[in-house]
């Protein structure tokens, strides 16, 4: 690889850091770009420099050792990578990335490109979801890990997925009262998924330990629920859910909710990657092989940005993608190590299927969303408005629905409402979410300040 082909990694979470580590070990000096001030990604997000007194064991709970290992890995290679923290990649255009750092834009060409862009929470709206005090699970975790605060004094946890239990435990450990954990998945479904999860007994044991620890501390854990509403005037006061034939109401001043994660794929889209519908993630994802190669030569995807598999898988996938990049550039790779990574990744894939069976997406939820409920907060589009263009035959595809209703056109560009919009439009048309397509990415992938100055014009 010549200097012009210097590899670029986007994202310094578990996948990006392990990818950088492997490239450095091969004698290269990759560019490592990350939005955060400190490495670790969302899952191992580090507190701001200085001022934080809680140790890693308190911040990350059961994940502390892994978080520490990933942080140390970055520390070790820091002087051998072109590390660019606090930097947003806002566009990908014809072989170059556009960056924004401290109000200054810069453009860097890339040779091999490894996208390790991670994921955000997948949410569906329900009555009261826009009340102040309702946060996503990931957002609740960021508050704890980065802002040193909780989203409330008495918090209810709603949704499904491993994060539901992990964040509830982290909150409990931080001294917050947990009003209850409300899992949309019935206990029978989770029990049926147990054998599959035995593929990774350590992770399964940890998951069961989380639930046990919550119960031990008197936290009610309910299964098979559906939300009715978050109640309150200008502020969360209570959460009401349907449970079997009955109803449960808990008083709380905050709600953390999420239905698993969704991949951040905009850069892959702008870079021209082919996508396919992944029934397990119920999302259109970049096509990639087990090593992370996409349809675009020289472009690799590692970690949750290409499909949700979690932090452990992300570490493996990051290293694997880096080794694929080395191999494709004609550099020597350690075949035994690659074979080991492939075996581990295959096990992860199997475990991921089991995990998905244990925390399935509640497919019936979207149909119950009332027409007058706000779906797209940025543009003020209700569920009924979106359903209407489907029912009247005006839009059979999500970008067309966007053009007619503005859904997904606002600040978040559909990153928050996109999954729900696809479910609602599909429901209105009587088809699966695969049939309505995916929102096309448009630059900037996150809002760009008008005052952003090109680096060549910025005064030193």
């Amino acid at each position, binding site marked *: 690889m010549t200097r012009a082909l210097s590899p670029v990694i986007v994202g310094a979470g578990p996948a990006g850091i392990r990818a950088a580590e492997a490239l450095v070990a091969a004698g290269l000096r990759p560019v490592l770009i990350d939005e955060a001030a400190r490495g670790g990604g969302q899952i191992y997000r580090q507190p701001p420099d200085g001022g934080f007194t809680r140790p890693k064991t308190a911040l990350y709970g059961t994940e502390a050792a892994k978080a520490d290992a990933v942080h140390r890995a970055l520390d070790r290679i820091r002087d051998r990578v072109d590390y660019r923290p606090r930097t947003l990649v806002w566009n990908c255009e014809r072989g170059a990335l*556009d960056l924004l750092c401290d109000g200054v834009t810069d453009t860097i060409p890339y040779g091999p490109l490894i996208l390790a862009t991670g994921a955000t929470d997948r949410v569906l709206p329900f009555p009261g979801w826009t009340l102040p005090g309702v946060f996503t699970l990931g957002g609740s975790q960021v508050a704890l890990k980065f802002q040193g605060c909780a989203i409330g004094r008495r918090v209810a946890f709603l949704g499904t997925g491993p994060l539901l239990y992990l964040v509830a435990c982290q909150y409990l450990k931080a001294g917050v009262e947990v009003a209850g954990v409300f899992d949309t998945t019935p206990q029978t479904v989770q029990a049926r998924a147990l054998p599959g999860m035995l593929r990774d007994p350590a992770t399964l044991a940890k998951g069961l330990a989380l639930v046990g620890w919550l119960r031990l501390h008197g936290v009610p854990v309910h299964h098979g629920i559906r939300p009715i509403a978050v109640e309150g005037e200008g502020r969360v006061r209570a959460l009401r859910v349907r449970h079997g034939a009955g109803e449960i109401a808990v008083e709380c001043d905050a709600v953390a909710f999420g239905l698993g994660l969704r991949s951040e794929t905009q850069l892959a889209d702008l870079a*021209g990657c082919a996508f396919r519908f992944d029934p397990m993630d119920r999302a259109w994802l970049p096509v990639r092989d087990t090593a992370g190669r996409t349809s675009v030569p020289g472009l690799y995807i590692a970690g949750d940005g290409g499909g949700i598999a979690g932090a452990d898988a992300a570490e493996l996938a990051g290293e694997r993608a880096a080794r694929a990049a080395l191999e494709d550039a004609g550099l020597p790779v350690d075949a035994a190590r690659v074979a080991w990574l492939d075996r581990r990744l295959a096990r992860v894939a199997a475990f991921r299927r089991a995990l998905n069976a244990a925390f399935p997406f509640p497919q019936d939820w979207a149909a119950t969303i009332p027409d007058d409920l706000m779906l797209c907060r940025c543009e003020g589009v209700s569920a009924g408005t979106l359903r209407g263009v489907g029912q009247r035959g*005006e839009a059979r*595809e999500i970008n067309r629905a966007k*053009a*007619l209703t503005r859904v997904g056109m*606002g600040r978040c*560009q559909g990153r928050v409402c996109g999954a729900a919009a696809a479910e609602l439009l599909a429901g209105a048309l009587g088809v699966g979410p695969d049939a309505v397509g995916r929102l096309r990415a448009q*630059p900037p992938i996150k809002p760009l300040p*008008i005052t952003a100055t090109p680096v060549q014009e910025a005064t030193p």
Partner: protein
Amino acid sequence: MTEHIHCDVAIVGGGIVGGSAALFLREMGFSVTLLERDWCGAKASGVNFGGVRRQGRPLEQLPLSQRAHAIWGRLPELLGTDAEYIRSGHLKLARSEADLDSLIAYKERSAGFGLDLEIIAGDAFRRRFPALGDRAVGGSLCPEDGHANPRLVSPAFARAAAARGAIVREQTPVDRVSRDGDRFVLVSGDALEVRARVLLNTAGAWSHRIATAFDEPVPLESLHPNMAVTEPLPRFLDVNIGVEGGGVYGRQVPRGNMVVGGGRGFALDPDRARPQRDAVLTLMRDAAELFPQIAKAHVIRCWTGVEGYTPDRNPIIGPSRTTPNLFHAFGFSGAGFQIGPAVGEALAELVRDGRSTAPLDAFRIDRFPPTP
């Protein structure tokens, strides 16, 4: 199993021109089939800036533009929606005394066309438009011009045509077009064959393919106007803004977002285009200079489209010179949105009467030297 449709008029291209032609032809009683490769109004007609402006057009376009102005006034009645159309006024800014002189000269030249232009300068300009920065020394206001949401207007014309009985087929590319006796034959894969006495070529940036199929190649170039929109801001601007000499344009939509345009995107392939990074950054700088209120805002989205441009920047509108009953309307060169509905109406007249009441001579297809 191929479906066969026989009709009076086949239209290729469901943009604002094809859609409005279908609508007016149905009102005259013709049977119409409209074929659109994508979704109707999803290309240049639906992703343009949204300016509904007569001011600044070459004089030869003004008769059509005036007729379009009347049609825009009837949108709710024609389409069942106002599509966020507002007669806010269009203000063309002068950044120098020389530019102001150009605006005054245009006002004089266009005096007979009913634009009611008003030149405002100096202190009167500052008092009237306090929101505009110091960059402008004055401007020319066309009070009845305005802006609309192109994503809503353009699909609505095709929808209104369908509601009046036109057959509208979206996601239907035309793979072959030929003559069989006195009929045009349009084929879309194995699925559809349309036979029609009259063919309207309203396929936008792709129209030259049909023109070429009938031995009428035209020098049409695809370009990609670059646009961006900010997050919603408090209302500070009603009028649609252009600048003498070009460069940047802007309008604030009722939701508060500021839509600005300037510069060019680039082609991904013949069918798709993307905004271009340097154009986006230049546009942000120029727009913030013109509209100080947006300086602290964010751009939330950029886009462009694929638009056909002719060498003289006037469209091609009128009968084919090689083939009877073939009519063209394309090459609007970035300014087809406002006059589109009047062009559709003129096409309908050409089909019915063989001539249009609007002068179209400047838009003849044979005005260009033959392309090799």
